[in-house]
């Protein structure tokens, strides 16, 4: 149904340098910043077929294709982006970037602070979703894109989509908000806080200056990721995947890995430590926590969405408890009340929040059907 089509092949990330200072919501400004970007497909002559992909907490600019022919793993959303795929690179010019504050090449805590010549580390300013969107708008300017045919994102990416539609209404034709929420719940913020405390209380954290000490707060970052993973999966999915089986015939009565799920979580935690920066993780979770377009519009989500003019597609997953369908319905309700055009699909799913990355037939079917119309509109 959704996965029978091609790959964008080998792609080379591009670095975009922005010398004009970016004023941030925290009051500080970045004098200079860089964004790592990948693009797939071709921008048409009217520059009307561009699609922006916004990534989630741990995502980056490598959304599709391979970096080398013998890469084992393609980009994080390769099952959805490519020739003939729901986000069809034969029809769209697809732009994916590593957000500001990231650790995959865009300016972030691991970059050098021009004022000190040392890595920013914990001195990198905390960012908001709006900061990201404004940095992405400059990228659009640079690429010659006045209006995105669609801005698409899941989870934290869906928050960027919402922010785009509210902050730059004329620049977003269609907004596709997947497995997201109009703001975090107290429970969500609580999970983020435990993840942050795990990092902050790691003796190797050194107030965020761990790089200068030549160490990594790996225990804290690992714990943060292990906790995150529990919330990205449903109870049923974990039961199906791991059960409560011991790895050996009898209990060993110690704290080594005894159950399959322990082994899985430790592996996920460790592989995350190898590829992610703790200061970036802290920053990303804060950006999630701060997102609240209603707060910016006098406490009313409806008032926030009155500013938007895009058409919306909102998608939620039945087994997602981290960003439950009820949260997506809040978005839909506010959009309807604001008189905006919106469609909503609830995808029957098993895995949990992570389902937004899965090639579920109904999910990709709805996305494909929607984007085919978008492609016809902008052709």
């Amino acid at each position, binding site marked *: 149904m959704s996965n029978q089509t091609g790959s964008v092949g080998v792609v080379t990330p591009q670095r975009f340098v922005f010398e004009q200072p970016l004023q941030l919501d925290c009051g500080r400004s970045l004098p200079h910043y860089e964004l790592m970007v990948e693009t797939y497909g071709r921008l048409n002559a009217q520059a009307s077929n561009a699609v922006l992909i916004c990534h989630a907490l741990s995502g980056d600019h490598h959304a599709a294709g391979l970096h080398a022919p013998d890469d084992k793993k393609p980009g994080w959303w390769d099952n959805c982006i490519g020739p003939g795929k729901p986000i069809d690179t034969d029809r769209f010019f697809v732009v994916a970037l590593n957000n500001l504050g990231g650790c995959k090449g865009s300016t972030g805590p691991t970059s050098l602070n021009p004022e000190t010549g040392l890595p920013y580390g914990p001195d990198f300013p905390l960012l908001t979703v709006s900061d990201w969107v404004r940095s992405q708008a400059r990228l659009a300017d640079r690429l010659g894109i006045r209006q995105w045919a669609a801005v698409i994102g899941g989870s934290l990416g869906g928050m960027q989509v919402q922010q785009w539609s509210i902050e730059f209404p004329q620049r977003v034709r269609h907004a596709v908000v997947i497995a997201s929420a109009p703001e975090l719940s107290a429970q969500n913020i609580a999970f983020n806080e435990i993840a942050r405390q795990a990092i902050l209380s790691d003796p190797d954290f050194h107030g965020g200056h761990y790089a200068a000490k030549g160490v990594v707060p790996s225990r804290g970052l690992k714990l943060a990721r292990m906790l995150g993973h529990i919330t990205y999966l449903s109870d049923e999915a974990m039961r199906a995947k791991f059960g409560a089986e011991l790895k050996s015939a009898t209990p060993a009565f110690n704290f080594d890995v005894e159950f399959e799920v322990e082994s899985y979580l430790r592996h996920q935690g460790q592989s995350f430590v190898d590829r992610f920066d703790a200061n970036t993780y802290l920053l990303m979770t804060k950006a999630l926590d701060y997102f609240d377009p209603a707060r910016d519009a006098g406490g009313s989500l409806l008032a926030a969405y009155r500013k938007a003019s895009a058409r919306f*597609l909102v998608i939620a997953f039945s087994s997602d408890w981290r960003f439950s369908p009820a949260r997506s*319905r809040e978005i*839909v*309700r506010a959009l*309807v*009340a604001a008189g905006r*055009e*919106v*469609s*909503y*699909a*609830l*995808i*029957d799913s098993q895995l949990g929040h992570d389902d937004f990355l899965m090639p579920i037939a*109904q999910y990709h*079917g*709805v996305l494909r*059907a*929607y984007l*085919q*119309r978008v492609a016809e509109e902008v052709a």
Partner: protein
Amino acid sequence: MNTAAPLRADLAALSPWIPEGSRILDLGCGDGTLLAHLAATQKVRGYGLEIDPANVRAAVARGVNVIQADLDEGLSDFANGAFDVVVMSQALQALQRPDAVLAEMLRVGQTAIVTFPNFGHWRVRAALLAGRMPVTPSLPAGWFDTPNIHLCTVADFEALCKARGWKVSRRALLDRRHRGGLAIRLLPNLFCEQALYELRAG
């Protein structure tokens, strides 16, 4: 919009009741045919609610605003008086509480348009007289697998409206080809197969 396919007869019958340019909510919108038709021909704007995933996908493909929802959970996503017209075609008899949904339609809409098969039709009565549950052109499913759990006659429906104080502002009682006729005018509850009603809150 796709207007090439001919509109289902009951939808064709109710379309003229919907004012040009109105804001509508279509409950059980299926693949979005009615909304697409009304948008193309009468500049109608609005949303469809649909529970079936394949229909949701088809409606999205048609370019209508479709919101996946279960009508039995009510219309709490919508504000009082948010729509000019709330339409529900051939879904009344499949609801857990048809009366509750009708009340919701009249809360969010100025008018409610409802269509349903008349269980008082003579074919139904004949089947029951013969001691069997009816299987008719309008009600083709067997008793064990029918989605229709709350069937009513035209007389039952009007009694409910009266009891709840809902005003019938328009009605059309038709045969299964959605035509009227002398027999239906004389004995509506016996000869009507498809009923169309427009209601207003009292």
